[in-house]
């Protein structure tokens, strides 16, 4: 094997590209790879040149005025065409004439003192990039506005040849590109696999046996649509949808930082689930979270308790309880965190880069950063309210107390299970305005120029008729002219269902982000989303009922060669599911799942000593006191997240540590994950419980194994699979001694029925564990 590996570097690279004849966005599949040997007939600024300039030139010749070299700015036409400051007779760019354009001369000179980018920058242009720039200058060096900052327009549906394939609009855009590239879509996935994919995507849970049976039996042409609607009605839908939002909103059950004390923000998490389940429109969903405290309720009175609870969104950030801190330094950090979240999570831009200086790539000045910052800078909060302590420290001012009366009336979705005082950190502004200054180098103690609330002009100037507070900010965000909000959320959901976004860098739609693979589709979906009242469930339905989504995930050799990353979506999505859903799948298929929604987070099995080993020794979370009974079997999303020591089995499967806004999880494949699936008591207990259930049924071994397989993998096993697993069972049965059987079964707290044959149980338990460990089990395919 090693030998084979050694051969690889010898292979010579061959550029891979798709034929493309036009630079029109709608007709291009974008590739950021700078190595492609493909030379377009017409060079596009947005697709070919901007990525080069942005990546290699703009750090010194871009929007950041403080770091600009030689007064030259290359991200704007007027400045790039102007006479050079230092050599008034020369010009950086002379449209049509690379031979007298200083840009071209400098990137081609062998003279290292003249060469651009300078060797000291460790940046280099490839020969292909140089040719592209030359051709672009020859063709007139025309600039275009960055695609993401131009409001989307709804394009016409492209025409396709294979007209019987599309099931809805999405498919026209997808198929058109496939046809251009000369590939054809996969056939529809088989019904079992399709149902598993759908069920995992809509509820985060595998389909039940009865759902599998009824779907397989339903031969009507709209059987699939029916099951989609059925799954939407399952309240687990709200839980599934909430997860990506909890990552984005950096929700956790501890304050973070040094002592990392307990907090009670979970009622907000219950609200998020509720909001998805009642299909709250996205604009309302976000506006409440940004500015619910500033909204008059329906009767014109003060905002409702529910609206106030929604604003906990902006208080989910870490809050220090370390005694020695300078409060203002931390208060500034909280405001920064909210500002950065707005950028990354809601606008899909790295506005955070303008915290210390003008943005190096995108047209956001540092001043504009602090204008956005100003919206969040007026909260009635302090940097350090209290050191770690008792229940009074579980939320920080401004806070909202949720009474039992509230639960009875308006907040019925909050799963409060005792009579203790329940407090949540929420938003609330000062009566007077706290002044906001540009902070030099981002330092809290280096105020510069005073600024007023405002928004980056390059995205959309702030409408003067809007109130200059978070309410106005929410209006701006959902202004139909805002080019980003809809695109960014449509893309996030696309990523949830198809595994990666149409813009792969879901948190960066700026110049350094990747270009959309299907720009016209993105725009169509974004405009359609807005036109239909920001209806999330409708959008989800469009995605999951598309022919694109329903394709089989099988990978043929040809498709692999043509499109290893599945950019063209000529096969269905095949991805390992998120950490929390792995746990859900294990619990649900074994029958252990406790379907309770919401409430305080729980502490299931966890290896001993983790919290104790890393704690300062203070506070409720200094020791891990494991729960018992039904709390052990709650969905993964309810596992208590202590920020400094996140739940290990989830962290190992790339769950967010909820430190900061996160819009895209890594998806790794490591030996530690194998160890979790093989040895975590959660998996072993579920194996034992399911095996016991099956042994109590009147059926043969093959049937028992077949049923376990269906419950876990969501399909009937093949003959070969059945043979292998049955042989394994027989072998284990012979091998396991009563003593070892007893030990094997001693895992987890759920009781084993007395009258079961322990040896059989242990053998079957191993079979079930093996099924849990199949690659296919935790993969939607």
């Amino acid at each position, binding site marked *: 094997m090693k030998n084979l*590996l*050694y051969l*690889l*570097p010898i*292979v010579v690279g*061959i*550029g*891979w590209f798709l034929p493309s004849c036009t630079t029109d966005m709608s007709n291009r599949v974008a590739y950021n790879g700078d*190595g*492609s040997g493909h030379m377009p007939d017409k060079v596009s600024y947005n697709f070919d040149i901007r990525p080069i300039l*942005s990546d290699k030139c703009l750090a010194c010749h871009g929007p950041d005025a403080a770091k600009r070299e030689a007064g030259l700015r290359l991200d704007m036409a007027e400045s790039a065409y102007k006479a050079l400051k230092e050599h008034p007779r020369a010009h950086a760019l002379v449209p049509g004439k690379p031979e007298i354009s200083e840009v071209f001369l400098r990137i081609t000179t062998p003279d290292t003192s003249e060469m651009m980018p300078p060797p000291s920058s*460790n*940046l280099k242009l*490839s020969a292909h990039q140089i040719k592209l720039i030359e051709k672009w200058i020859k063709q007139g060096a025309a600039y275009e506005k960055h695609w993401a900052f131009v409001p989307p327009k709804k394009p016409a549906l492209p025409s396709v040849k294979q007209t019987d394939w599309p099931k809805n609009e999405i498919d026209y855009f997808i198929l058109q590109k496939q046809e251009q590239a000369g590939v054809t879509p996969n056939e529809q996935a088989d019904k079992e696999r399709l149902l598993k994919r759908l069920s995992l995507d809509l509820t985060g849970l595998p389909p039940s046996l009865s759902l599998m049976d009824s779907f397989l039996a339903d031969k009507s042409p709209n059987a699939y649509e029916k099951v989609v609607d059925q799954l939407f009605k399952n309240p687990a839908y709200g839980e599934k949808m909430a997860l990506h939002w909890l990552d984005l909103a950096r929700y956790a059950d501890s304050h973070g930082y040094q002592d*990392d004390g307990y907090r009670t923000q979970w009622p907000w998490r219950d609200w998020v689930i509720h909001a998805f389940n009642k299909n709250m429109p996205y604009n309302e969903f976000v506006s409440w979270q940004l500015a619910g405290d500033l909204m008059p309720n329906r009767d014109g009175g003060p905002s409702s308790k529910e609206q106030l609870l929604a604003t906990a969104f902006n208080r989910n950030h870490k809050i220090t309880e*370390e*005694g020695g*801190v*300078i*409060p203002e330094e931390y208060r500034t950090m909280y405001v920064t965190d909210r500002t950065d979240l707005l950028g990354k999570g809601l606008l899909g831009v*790295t506005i955070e880069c303008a915290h210390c200086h003008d943005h*190096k790539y995108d047209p956001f000045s540092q001043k504009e950063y602090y204008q956005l910052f100003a919206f969040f800078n007026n909260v009635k909060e302090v940097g350090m309210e209290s050191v770690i302590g008792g229940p009074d420290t579980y939320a920080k001012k401004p806070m909202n107390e949720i009474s039992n009366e509230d639960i009875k009336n308006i907040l019925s979705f909050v799963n409060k299970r005792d009579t203790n005082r329940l407090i949540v950190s929420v938003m609330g502004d000062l009566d007077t305005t706290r002044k906001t200054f540009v902070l030099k180098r981002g330092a809290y103690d280096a105020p510069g120029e005073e600024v007023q609330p405002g928004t980056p002009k390059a995205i959309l100037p702030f409408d003067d008729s809007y109130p200059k507070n978070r309410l106005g900010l929410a209006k701006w965000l959902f202004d139909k002219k805002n080019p980003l909000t809809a695109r960014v959320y449509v893309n996030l959901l696309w990523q949830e269902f198809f595994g990666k976004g149409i813009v792969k*860098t879901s948190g960066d739609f700026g*110049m350094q982000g990747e270009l959309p693979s299907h720009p016209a589709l993105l725009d169509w979906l974004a405009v359609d989303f807005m036109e239909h009242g920001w209806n999330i469930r409708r959008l989800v339905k469009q995605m999951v009922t598309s022919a694109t989504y329903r394709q089989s*995930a*099988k990978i043929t050799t040809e498709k*692999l*060669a043509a499109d*290893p990353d599945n950019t063209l979506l000529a096969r269905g999505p*095949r991805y390992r599911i998120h950490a929390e859903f792995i746990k859900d799948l294990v619990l649900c298929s074994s029958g252990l799942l406790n379907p309770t929604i919401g409430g305080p987070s729980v502490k299931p099995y966890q290896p*001993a000593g983790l919290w104790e*080993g*890393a704690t*300062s*020794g203070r506070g409720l979370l200094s020791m891990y006191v494991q729960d018992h009974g039904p709390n052990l079997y709650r969905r993964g999303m309810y596992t208590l997240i202590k920020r*400094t020591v996140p739940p290990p089995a989830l962290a*190992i499967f790339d769950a967010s*540590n909820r*430190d900061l806004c996160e819009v895209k999880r890594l998806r*790794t*494949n490591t*030996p*530690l994950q194998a*160890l979790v699936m*093989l*040895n975590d008591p959660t998996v072993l207990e579920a194996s034992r419980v399911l095996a016991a259930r099956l042994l109590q049924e009147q059926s043969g071994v093959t049937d028992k194994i077949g049923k376990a397989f269906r419950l876990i993998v969501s399909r009937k096993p093949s003959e*070969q699979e059945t043979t292998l697993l049955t042989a394994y069972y027989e072998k*284990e049965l012979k091998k396991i001694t009563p003593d*070892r059987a*007893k030990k*094997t079964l*001693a*895992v987890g707290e759920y009781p084993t029925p007395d009258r079961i044959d322990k040896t059989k149980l242990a053998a079957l338990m*191993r079979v079930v564990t*093996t099924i849990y*460990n*199949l*690659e296919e089990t935790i*993969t939607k*395919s």
Partner: protein
Amino acid sequence: MEKEILEHGLNFNRRRFLSRLSLGLGSAALGSLLIPDLFKSSGAEEDGFTPGIPHFAPKAKRVIYLFQNGAPSQQELFDYKPKLREMMGQEMPPSIRGKQRLTNMTANQKEFPLVGSFVNFKQYGESRAWVSDLFPYTAKIVDDLCIVKSMFTEAINHDPALTFLQTGSQQGNRPSMGSWLSYGLGNENKNLPNFTVLLSRGIGNGQGVYSKLWSNGFLDSIHQGVQFSKGEDPVLYLRDPEGMDRQDRRDMLDNLAQLNDLSYQEFGDPEIAAKVKQYEMAYRMQTAVPEVMDLSKEPDDIIKLYGPDCLVPGTFAANCLLARKLSENGVRFVQLYHQGWDQHGNLPFEIAKQAKDVDQASAALVTDLKQRGLLDETLVIWGGEFGRTSYTQGKLTKDNYGRDHHPRCFTIWMAGGGIKPGMVYGETDEMGYNIVSNPVHVHDFQATVLNQLGLNHEKLVFKHLGRRYRLTDVSGKVVHDIIA
């Protein structure tokens, strides 16, 4: 069967390679099984850099970082300031303090009386380095150490300061130093994680540690620090369940591999082959980790060298011995944290205990590596996250005082790995408050560490969300003066 899957996967990956342009991947990196998704190039590597291949010939191959969490007081350990004793109880001159911001613990303190160390210092070795009586064992090895008295940082609180030292940024969410090295250099041992973390705690005032300190940030999670803990499960979930022996496990994995192969034949997804590989790696780790954790075979003279505590799992001494074994087995970066150095009050009592916890084993580790001929290729680092004030926090009594956090100077030492031995670098003023010569910023320190491992800190870059990130962020200069 496994071989078939792998080869099949490779066939696929070769095609995939063809489809990508950058083909600098070297054989060293390819041979490594600990880089599971090697073929899944993130595209974020810089031109001319291949993960797993250093920029130039390294002096050191591995690092052991003995982090003293909580910030040990330099005035009581290495930075001898007789003047402070002379000026005992006198007010700290405002001109010395300048505009230094203070933590909230002393910001409202009305007086800042200087306090000399309760402990005596002597000079040792050929280098004549000053070491306090609290460190008798360290004193004996000063000629192997490069003591840097002029470290400084930007943060004044534990969380940001620790995070800054470990990740180059105060905010977190970036890769830790160990993750960068794992990414930059690849691994030497395919059966052990490349970056391991060991925790221990003294009796002194403790400050928590947090897993973000050994986070892989935006790098692949294979570069994440893996915590080895005392007890039966040194790596989380490592131990097979009760009632299952190695043969049982082997049988299960063989079955699993056959079943996964069926799935692979159907889907052709290389992730399936990768999964089989990861299970095999997990299986090997199950043997390799307990072997390396087993200290029972260490000879008496080694036990004596590290001190009796080294047989008590979870102590700093045991972790030092373990660190040597891990490092000896090719683990690229072994990170220890010893908590309890935050002496805001009651300093004389607490620091004496803390010092006793770490002195013998720290020195033993250097000596042990040296006698094995490993010190040349192993960089050992000892130090905390900032220094402590020259004036007392709280009341100064005849025999008791405390010291607050102080970012402007602190002392660390390094040994081996191509660092000059027997050297004292940098100097602070006579009040031990400001640096007067050769300041070393945290980023300079990080740049120097990377340099010793054959990595140019300005070129070890990873592009994430459109920005190029470095361990040293946007600054840092290699401290050539201390390189042998």
